[in-house]
C-alpha cells in the first residue's frame, strides 16, 4: 500500500528529441506536465523562455471527428505513430484541407437544401391555413393594399416582433400548424425550434418592415411570381417538399461515402494527427528559447531512472534536471499523489477518494480500508442469501449504468464478505435453520457479539493511532508523534484503560493492575498530555498544537473521543442484531398471512418484498454505517488528505 514516490523532472533539448521523449511519456502514461517556471524557478534561463499554450492539433482532430460523426461511424481507435518527427503541422494541415473542402461543400449544399425545405414547409403550412378560409396561395402575390411576408424565427425574437407591432403599423401572426410541427426532423433541421410567422403590412411600409425583420433575425421566406403560380396546388407543394427531402437524405450520406472511399488514408491521417495532438497536450506548458525546448512535469521516481537511461543512450543533446520530492516539499510545492495498490485493494481507492486523496507523503490507508470495510459490512449484514443478492444486484446496476464500476466493485467485495459472515452466523435469507452457524447466531449470542465488536473497535482505533504516529514521524513532527493525545502517550493511555477495563469485567478481575499503580500511571500520562507542549518543547524542541487553554480542551476532547469512538463500534453488533431482527419480522409477517385464502401466494409476496426491503434498505444503512466508521472513527485519528491526484496525459483523449 503506497503513495508512489514522485520527482519533478525537466527535459531541455532540441525539438525532435523532446518530441521523442513526449512520445515515450505518452506511451507509458507516466508524465504530468507543469509550467516550466515551477521547476526552473531559480534557474537563470527562466526569464528568457517564452511559454506557449494552445494545441494546434485540436482544430485538425475536431475536423476529422466531425467527418466521422457526420458519417455516423465510430471514430477510429488510433495507435501511436512512431515516425513522428517526419510529420509537420503544415503538412498535416494541408492534408486536412482536402477534408475541410469536402465538408465545407457538403455543409453549404446541406444548408441550401435545408433552406429550401424550410421554404417548402412554410409554404405548405400557409397553404393549409389559407385553404381552410377558402383562399389560394397565389392570391398573396396580388394583394393590392396589404403585403404579406412569411418567415420563421425563434420564440424570443417572436416576442420582440410582437411587442414592436404595438408601436408600429404591422400585424404579425403566429401560425400554429400541427402538421408543420410533426414534419420537423429535429436531427437534421437546423431551425427546428423556430416558429412560423406571417406579417401583414402596407406596401409603403415594406422597406421599414425589412429592417424590422432583419432586427429580429427573422428568416424571411421569399417566393417569386412563378413560385406562387407553380405551387398553388397543395399536391404540387407536397411533391416539391418530398423531392427536397430526398435530396437532403442523399446529401446526408455524402460524408459516409467519402469516408468509405478514402478509409485507409483517412485512418492513417487520423492516427498521425491524434498522436501529434496527444504529444502537444503533453507539452502544452512547454517553453521555448530559439531551438531549445523545455518540458517540465511530474513523474514517478522509478520511471525517472528509466527515462534518464533512455536519454543517456539515445538522445545526446538533451539534458535532464530532476528535483527530489523532499526538496520540492521543503519549497512547499504541491506534489501530486499516485496510489499504487494490489488489484483487489485498488477498488477501495474510490472509498478513500470520496473522503479525500492522501496528500503526498502521507500513509495510504486503502489497504486497511479494503479489509476493514469488508469486515464491518459483513459483520453487520451477514447473510449468505442477501450477500449473493447484493452481488447479483450490483452486476445488474452496473450493466444498466446506474452504478459506477468502482463502487460496484466495492459492493461486490462487501457482498462476498456478507456471504462469508452469513456462513459464520448460519443465516440464509434470514433463515437460521438451513445451515448451522460456524461461529454464532447474533440473536442468540448477544453477550458474545457485543464484546467482539468492542474488541474490533479497540484494535481498529489503535491502528488509527499507530498511523497517526507514523504520519507524524514522516513529517518529522516528533512532538505530535509522541506527546499528543493521538500520539504514543495517548496510545499507551488508551491501551491501559481498555486493558484494565477488560480484565476487571472478565473472569479474573484479580489479575487487574492494582488501583494505586493504575491511577498513578494514568494520571502521569494524563499530565504529560496536558503539558504536552512544554514536554515536547523541552525534549524535541517542537510544539504539539496551539497550546494554552486550547490544548487543554483538546486533550479532554481526545479523552472523550477515546470513549465515544470505542463505544461507536457497538453498532457492529447492533446492526447485526438489527439485520437478524428484521429478517425475523419478515418471516413472522409472512407466516401471519399464510392462513388466509390464497395464503401461499401472499406468503411468497410478503417474503419477496420483505427480503427486497431488507437487502435494499438495510444494505444502504449498513453501507453508510461502514463509511462512518471508516471516515469518522478511523480517518479522524490520523488522516489529513487534501492530496491532488496525479494526472498524467493519457493516450486516450477525454
Amino acid at each position: 500500500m503506497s503513495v508512489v514516490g514522485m520527482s519533478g523532472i525537466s527535459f531541455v533539448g532540441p525539438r525532435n528529441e523532446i518530441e521523442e521523449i513526449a512520445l515515450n511519456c505518452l506511451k507509458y502514461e507516466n508524465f504530468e506536465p507543469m509550467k516550466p517556471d515551477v521547476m526552473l524557478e531559480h534557474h537563470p534561463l527562466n526569464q528568457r523562455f517564452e511559454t506557449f499554450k494552445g494545441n494546434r492539433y485540436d482544430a485538425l482532430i475536431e475536423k476529422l471527428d466531425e467527418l466521422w460523426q457526420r458519417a455516423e461511424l465510430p471514430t477510429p481507435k488510433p495507435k501511436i505513430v512512431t515516425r513522428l518527427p517526419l510529420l509537420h503541422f503544415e503538412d498535416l494541415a494541408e492534408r486536412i484541407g482536402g477534408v475541410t473542402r469536402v465538408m465545407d461543400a457538403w455543409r453549404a449544399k446541406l444548408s441550401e437544401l435545408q433552406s429550401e425545405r424550410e421554404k417548402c414547409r412554410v409554404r405548405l403550412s400557409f397553404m393549409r391555413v389559407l385553404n381552410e378560409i377558402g383562399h389560394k396561395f397565389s392570391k398573396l402575390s396580388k394583394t393590392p393594399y396589404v403585403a404579406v411576408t412569411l418567415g420563421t424565427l425563434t420564440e424570443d425574437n417572436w416576442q420582440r416582433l410582437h411587442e414592436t407591432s404595438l408601436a408600429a403599423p404591422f400585424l404579425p401572426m403566429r401560425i400554429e400548424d400541427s402538421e408543420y410541427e410533426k414534419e420537423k426532423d429535429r436531427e437534421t433541421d437546423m431551425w427546428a425550434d423556430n416558429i412560423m410567422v406571417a406579417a401583414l403590412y402596407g406596401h409603403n411600409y415594406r422597406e421599414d418592415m425589412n429592417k424590422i425583420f432583419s432586427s429580429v433575425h427573422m428568416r424571411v421566406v421569399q417566393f417569386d411570381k412563378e413560385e406562387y403560380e407553380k405551387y398553388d396546388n397543395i399536391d404540387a407543394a407536397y411533391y416539391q417538399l418530398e423531392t427536397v427531402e430526398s435530396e437532403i437524405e442523399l446529401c446526408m450520406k455524402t460524408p459516409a461515402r467519402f469516408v468509405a472511399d478514402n478509409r485507409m488514408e483517412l485512418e492513417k491521417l487520423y492516427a498521425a494527427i491524434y498522436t501529434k495532438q496527444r504529444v502537444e497536450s503533453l507539452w502544452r506548458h512547454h517553453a521555448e528559447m530559439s531551438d531549445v525546448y523545455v518540458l517540465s512535469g511530474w513523474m514517478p521516481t522509478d520511471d525517472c531512472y528509466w527515462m534518464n537511461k533512455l536519454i543517456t543512450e539515445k538522445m545526446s543533446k538533451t539534458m535532464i534536471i530532476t528535483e527530489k520530492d523532499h526538496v520540492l516539499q521543503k519549497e512547499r510545492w504541491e506534489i501530486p499523489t499516485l496510489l499504487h495498490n494490489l488489484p483487489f485493494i485498488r477498488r477501495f481507492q474510490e472509498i478513500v477518494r470520496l473522503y479525500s486523496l492522501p496528500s503526498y507523503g502521507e500513509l495510504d490507508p486503502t489497504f486497511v480500508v479494503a479489509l476493514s470495510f469488508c469486515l464491518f459490512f459483513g459483520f453487520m449484514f451477514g447473510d449468505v442469501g442477501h450477500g449473493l443478492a447484493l452481488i447479483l444486484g450490483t452486476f445488474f446496476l452496473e450493466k444498466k449504468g446506474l452504478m459506477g464500476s468502482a463502487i460496484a466493485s466495492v459492493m461486490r467485495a462487501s457482498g462476498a464478505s456478507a456471504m462469508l459472515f452469513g456462513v459464520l452466523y448460519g443465516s440464509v435469507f434470514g433463515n437460521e435453520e438451513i445451515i448451522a452457524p460456524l461461529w454464532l447466531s447474533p440473536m442468540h449470542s448477544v453477550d458474545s457479539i457485543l464484546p467482539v465488536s468492542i474488541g474490533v473497535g479497540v484494535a481498529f482505533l489503535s491502528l488509527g493511532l499507530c498511523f497517526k504516529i507514523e504520519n507524524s514521524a514522516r513529517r518529522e513532527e516528533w512532538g505530535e508523534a509522541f506527546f499528543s493525545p493521538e500520539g504514543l502517550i495517548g496510545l499507551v493511555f488508551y491501551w491501559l484503560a481498555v486493558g484494565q477495563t477488560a480484565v476487571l469485567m472478565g473472569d479474573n478481575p484479580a489479575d487487574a493492575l492494582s488501583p494505586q499503580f493504575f491511577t498513578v500511571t494514568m494520571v502521569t500520562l494524563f499530565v504529560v498530555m496536558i503539558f504536552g507542549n512544554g514536554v515536547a518543547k523541552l525534549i524535541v524542541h517542537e510544539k504539539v498544537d496551539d497550546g494554552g487553554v486550547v490544548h487543554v480542551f483538546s486533550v479532554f476532547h481526545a479523552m472523550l473521543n477515546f470513549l465515544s469512538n470505542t463505544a461507536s463500534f457497538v453498532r457492529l453488533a447492533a446492526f447485526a442484531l438489527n439485520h437478524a431482527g428484521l429478517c425475523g419480522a419478515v418471516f413472522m409477517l409472512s407466516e401471519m398471512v399464510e392462513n388466509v385464502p390464497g395464503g401461499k401466494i401472499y406468503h411468497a409476496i410478503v417474503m419477496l418484498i420483505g427480503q427486497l426491503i431488507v437487502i435494499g434498505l438495510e444494505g444502504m444503512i449498513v453501507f453508510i454505517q461502514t463509511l462512518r466508521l471508516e471516515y469518522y472513527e478511523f480517518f479522524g485519528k490520523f488522516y489529513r488528505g487534501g492530496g491532488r491526484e496525479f494526472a498524467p496525459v493519457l493516450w486516450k483523449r477525454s
Partner: protein
Amino acid sequence: MASIGGGGIAGSAKAKARRGTLLSPEEMSALLEQQTVSDIVDRLRGGSFDVFLGRLSADNIRRGELEFLLDISILAEGLIFRPYADAQDRNLLDLWIESFDIELIKNCIRSLIGGSQSEHISTDSALELVSGFRLTLVDQDRLLAANSLREIILSIKKESLRLALSAALPSALENLSPDDMKDLDRAGFQKAIFDFVTTLDRYYLGALYEAAKDMGGEKGRAVRMLVGARVDLTNLYWIYRARRFFGLSPEEALTLILRARYHADFDILTKFAFAEPNVMASALVGTIYSGIFEFNEEDGKNVALREMRLESRVSKMLLSVAERVFISGSQGFQNVLAYLTLKEFEIRDITAIMESVRYGFDKNKTAMFLIRASRSLEKEMN
C-alpha cells in the same frame, strides 16, 4: 413578512464592512495625481488589490492585462459572499458573477475583430488567483482558441444563449477569420457586432431580472430596484445609441430592447424611441430618468464629451440606487449586490484614472466623469 436567514444577515454585515474598504475620494485624488500607470499600480499594491496586482511586472504593465486583473478583483469580491447565501441568493449571485463570462466573450470578440490575441495569454494564470471560480457559461479553452464568431458561439455551454447568438449571427460573418474581417464594410459589420453584443447583454440582464422577480419581501424589492434600474437604463441607452449612431428607425430600436421592464414601461420606451434624436430627453419628463439624456449646447457640439457625460450619468444613477439600498438600513442579501455595484464603479473609476494618466488627459475633466469620487474631487480640483 420576509424571513432573513442568518446567512443573509452575515452577508449583509460583511458587505457593509467591506464597503468601508473601498477607495475614498481622497485616495482617488491621490491616484489622479500620479505621473505614470506604474505609480498608480504601486499605490494600489498593499491594499485589497495586492493579490491581483502583485504579479505585474513594474517595467511592462500591459493595459489589457491590468484591466483584466482589476475585473478579476470584482469577481473575487463576489465569490467571498457565496458561503453566506442561501439557494435563492446563491442563484442570483452566480448570475451576477456571470457578467464576467459575458465580458470575457465580448473581449474575445473585440480581440478577434481587432486582431490582438496576446492579452489572453495570462487569462489562465489570472483566473487561478480566484480559487473556486469556474466559468459557467462558456468553455474557456475553446473560447480563447476561437478563430471566428462561429467558434465563439460553439464555445458557449448554455444552449439558449447559443441559439440566440446563432440567430443573431449573419451567415456571411460566421466563419470569417480576423484577416477576412478587415476587408468588410465597416458600418454593416459594426451593426452585426452590435447585434451580437446586445444579444449577450439581453441574455444576461434578462436572466438576472427573472431571478430578481421571484424574490419576496424587502430583499426582493431592493434587488429589483438594483437590477431594474440597470434594465431600464440599458433599454434607454440602446434606443438612444440605435437612433443616434446607427440611424435605426424607432421600430428597429424597439426590437433591440430587453423584454424585462422596471419603471420604464413600453409606453415610455416607445415615446423615447419615436422622439427625434435631439429631443429624446423630453420623452422622459416626469420619470425618474429625466435629466440623464438632457444635453446643452456645448454637448451638442462635442460628441465625445456628450457621450462621456451620458455614460457618467447612467453610472451615477446606478450608483445612487446602490447607495440608497445601504442607506435604507435593511438587512439582507441586497446589501451584497449593492456593495458589488459600488465595487464595480470603483474599478471603473480606477480604470478611468489610469487612462487619464496614460494619455495625459486633463485631470479636471477626468475628475468630472468619475463615478464614485466625482463630487468631492471636482470640488478639490476647482
